[in-house]
């Protein structure tokens, strides 16, 4: 049997270091120990405290994956090793310096440098040209209005929903059509996953140890799509005041994605029955995806986006007597007076809190979706995406 060659990978350590120099892994290891979760991450906190580590093995790709998983640096799926070369290729697509800081990721406050975000984006499977989208998305998530601390630590199962608008969506192949919320498109999968890895590795949102979400949700792996560019209505970014030739990413706190087959009536019914008490109490901002077939028909009948929002607001209603039985009624610190003075109330505080997006397959049996929102403050945050540098 011949001697097997040992190969080396020079990897950028993807985990979070606080501005004070401490690594968040030390806190995570303690939390995991307390929570009895060390079996999942037996090597938590055991890594060289430096920027770059050299991993030598006959199969260094497998070795990186073994080590990263044991250290708690993955979402459970294999990762692409964040080698210096790959990380640098991502960093080269932005005018920012690798050391530039976008902020600190709550709750453990790892500093989100461009390079650390790039390392996580590589791990998630991002091509270099996806990186400006990831940066813009992280920027949006670090806006205080996103309430990263709440999202990461709540017992609710909330996840960031990312919607990309503008010409970059087609350029990067971010799917807005068939299966836009499902598997099969690398950009959707990798960009959404990059954001999750940033939340895990820089923010420390380890399930059970820091993140107390009771069930989690599949959207915590990735929840990213584009809006179709053949919508009969102005696309979201234009509605928000951007030019059509600009590209943006918009983020929401999404409790889940609920499939709705049909049209506005079915959508309103689901919005009423899947009403989130949190949304109602804290003026959550929700998103709906309208299938192109439905959107076209509405537009042809003279409906504007605002008409759709007003209609949904009016029709998505909750019975006040039913609400009295809710768990939240007994625990909420404040209970709005409007919940006591009417028989039914809208599940959404205002039509403006509803975002209407057009995406999905162009089918005559249309599939729509509703994303209820969790928590506070009201959140729908948009950032412009810089064009990737060549």
């Amino acid at each position, binding site marked *: 049997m011949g001697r097997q060659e040992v190969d080396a990978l020079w990897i950028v350590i993807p985990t979070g270091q*606080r*501005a*004070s*120099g401490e*690594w968040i892994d030390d806190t995570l290891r303690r939390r995991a120990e307390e929570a009895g979760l060390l079996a999942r991450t037996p090597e938590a906190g055991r890594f060289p405290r430096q920027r770059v580590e050299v991993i030598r093995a006959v199969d260094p790709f497998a070795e990186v994956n073994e080590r990263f998983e044991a250290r708690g640096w993955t979402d459970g799926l294999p990762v692409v090793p964040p080698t210096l070369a790959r990380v640098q290729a991502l960093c080269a697509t932005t005018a920012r310096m690798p050391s530039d800081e976008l902020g600190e990721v709550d709750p453990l406050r790892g*500093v989100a440098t461009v390079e650390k975000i790039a390392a996580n984006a590589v791990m998630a499977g991002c091509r270099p040209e996806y990186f400006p989208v990831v940066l813009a998305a992280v920027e949006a998530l670090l806006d205080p209005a996103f309430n990263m601390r709440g999202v990461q630590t709540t017992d609710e199962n909330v996840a960031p929903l990312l919607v990309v608008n503008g010409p970059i969506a087609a350029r990067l192949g971010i799917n807005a059509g068939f299966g836009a919320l499902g598997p099969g498109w690398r950009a959707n999968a990798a960009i959404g996953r990059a954001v999750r890895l940033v939340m895990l590795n820089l923010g420390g949102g380890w399930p059970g140890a820091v993140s107390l979400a009771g069930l989690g949700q599949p959207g915590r792996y990735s929840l990213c799509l584009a809006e179709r560019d053949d919508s009969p209505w102005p696309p979201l970014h234009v509605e928000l005041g951007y030019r059509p030739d600009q590209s943006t990413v918009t983020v929401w706190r999404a409790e889940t994605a609920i499939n709705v087959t049909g049209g506005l009536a079915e959508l309103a019914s689901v919005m009423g029955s899947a009403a989130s008490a949190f949304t109602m109490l804290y003026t959550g901002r929700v998103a709906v995806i309208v299938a192109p077939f439905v959107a076209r028909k509405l537009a042809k009948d003279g409906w504007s986006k605002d008409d759709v929002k007003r209609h949904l607001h009016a029709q998505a209603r909750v019975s006040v007597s039913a609400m009295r039985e809710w768990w939240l009624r007994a625990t909420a610190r404040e209970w709005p007076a409007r919940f006591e003075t009417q028989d039914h109330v809208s599940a959404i505080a205002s039509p403006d809190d509803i975002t209407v997006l057009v995406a999905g397959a162009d089918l005559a049996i249309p599939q729509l979706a509703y994303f209820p929102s969790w928590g506070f403050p009201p959140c729908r945050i948009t950032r412009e995406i810089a064009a990737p540098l060549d």
Partner: protein
Amino acid sequence: MLRASAAAEEAGVPSVSLTCEGFIGQAATTATGLGLPNLPVAVVPGHVDVQTVEELRANVLGFTVDAVIQGLTVAQEQASESVEPEPGAVVFEGSVDEINRFFYENGWSDGLPIVPPTAARVDEFLKFTDRAPDEELGVLLPDKRSATVRNVAINGVMAGCRPEYMPILVALIEAMADPAYGVEHSGNTPGAETLIILNGPLIRQLGFNYQQGALRDGFMANTSIGRFWRLYLRNVAGFLPHKTDKGTFGNTWRVVLAENEDALAKMSWTTIAADQGIAAGESAVTISRFTGGTVLASVFGSKPEQMIPYLADGIARLVAWEVIFTLGMADGAQKPLLVLSPILAQTLARAGLTKQDVQRQLFEHARIPAWKFERYLGEWTNLSPGHPRLVDFVKSKRAPAVFAESDDPNRLVPVVCKPDDIMVAVSGDPLRTNAYVFAHNGILGFPTTKPVRLPGAWRRLLAEAAGR
């Protein structure tokens, strides 16, 4: 900025530090170094220097005040220590190329190749000191890391020093760790650079250049020790560009300046080390941090009265905003350095001047208008609050009378407080009539001198080293 806050917190008084937006990372790192990693910081958006009063008010009320209240009222969580390799641990094995890549990528190098600090090379350096490898020479901010004999040797190896430079390296780090020097300021925004001045028999013994090209790279002892200084600031003190080192521009490290002691002896002039209180025959390093320097070319004349005005003009010209260290931010701490080529010094000495005479004459001539001095303090910069006036410094006995001989704004005043604040060294091309002048960074890198202690077996060790 956070050091006052740390002192307050240690005394049990809640504090919060106002920090401009560009300094958040430095604030956090500095706080950790001070042992209080969660010192509260309230951020002021942008930089206050370029905001109108209205903008500043809006920023403070809209943004900063909440963080001030939070910082003063909410208990800070405790942080844990970061984990570093044990002293002497092997952190990497690989080829020279791999080692260089590894050190560079981890921020342990200045961008030039290093000599790998192997255990064997480090041991060679340790032979050249009688001190124990783990002896602590001091604790350095901002990282609050121990300066030890061992990590001096490691950085000396990396910088390309020879083992026999080790006694000088140890003396340098003793000087760096001396509170009088103020190493903790090394990351400030003017980004001044330290100059190391060497005196004593080691200049000749170890082959330092002190003649033509005295401040140029190209001589192993001068160059590698200069590089060592900055590697040590990086790797032990913890000054890293884009993090704790906020030098707006900065500049590369300076090579060691060795004085021409033969020339000094012939003129009976004192050395820098002697001026700093070191006994004759002893080697010593003097460190001082200079904001910048410039050459005074072709000093013409055969008499002091022809030469002094030009030399003094160079000093007065270069010590500009730096007069805040003459009076204002610190009083009497401005210590500019004039380096004379031997031929210039000899011409002055031939006229019967001692170095102290030269310092007195330079003090008489290195003058600027009082209005300009005051504008540097409190109008063109905001480095001394409240538009201070020189007459008031004199009235309150903070400044000598020479600063207020009248209240005419056009009167000439000195740029230092007393003659011997102007340091004078002799080095460079012995036969060229040029001088060099450095403006000084005051208390943010005050001249500090340490004798170089040689090991008992110095002669033998040196002889052995010469054979290698």
